[in-house]
């Protein structure tokens, strides 16, 4: 089986690779989002605990965006 043959998937390349590509992409996005959420969270917490304890309270929790 040649490489082109493999990628053509017997004429169903669009459907097969479309499925796999979107799945991979969505999972990748989810991982990136989760990792980024963790980074920003730790970043904020670190800044707060460097300063006064509890500066980051009240409201929706999205202030102190210095």
């Amino acid at each position: 089986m040649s490489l082109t043959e493999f990628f053509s998937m017997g004429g169903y390349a669009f459907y097969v690779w479309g499925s796999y590509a979107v799945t991979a992409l969505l999972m990748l996005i989810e991982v990136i989002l989760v990792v980024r959420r963790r980074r920003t969270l730790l970043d904020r917490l670190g800044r707060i605990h460097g300063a006064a304890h509890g500066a980051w309270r009240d409201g929706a929790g999205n202030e102190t965006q210095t």
Partner: protein
Amino acid sequence: MALNWFKYSSPASFYPLAGRLAPWFGVAAALLTLTGLYLGFFVAPTDYKQGEAYRIIFIHVPAAWMSMFIYLVMAFYAGLGLVFNTRLSAFMARALAPTGALFTFISLWTGALWGKPMWGAWWVWDARLTSELILLFLYLGFISLQAAIEDPRRAARASGLLALIGAVNVPIIYFSVQWWNTLHQGASISMSQGSAMAATMLTAMLVMTLAFWMYTIAVVLTRVRCEILERERHSEWVAEVASRETR
């Protein structure tokens, strides 16, 4: 592994445990995915009826299974949180929802891409696809309700109750959709009909399912760690963690 359940049901002690476990699940997910893809693309034979297009099932079916499993696990944690008032269970339910919705969407997407070459239509009102669509609505309802409530305690309890209502209704909805489908003689997407599934196909599918599980656990553990940090940000131990991990 003799885990002391009660010790790890407190967020403060679950946090480091989850942190140690998550990378291992991530590695397991990657290895299993590679194995599954190898089996699916190079070992499993071409289906004599559907040609190469059938290879979509190696993600379609596992994703569909995951979407239902995750809903059940989520409802289980939600129930636990409501009955025993444990915060960790509520965090788990909340962390599971986005991944569950993701798999539901993937199963719908791949279902459409599979249906087009097989039935000549992007969407057929097949019982399974329809149920999957409704499941997506249930996930979205859960996520939106949680997002709409500001008080974290009310959000956890209200969405927990909603997850339980959903879990009771899922079998009823599934049964009614099946009934509706047979009455209207709709198309049925089924692998088992006609083509007997080769053992290697089944193996590849199971390996991919396992890979999705490992992925889910890794992502959910990481997300639950974020939840814990956010909710407990005023406590002493979070202050310690923050100063340790940001350095």
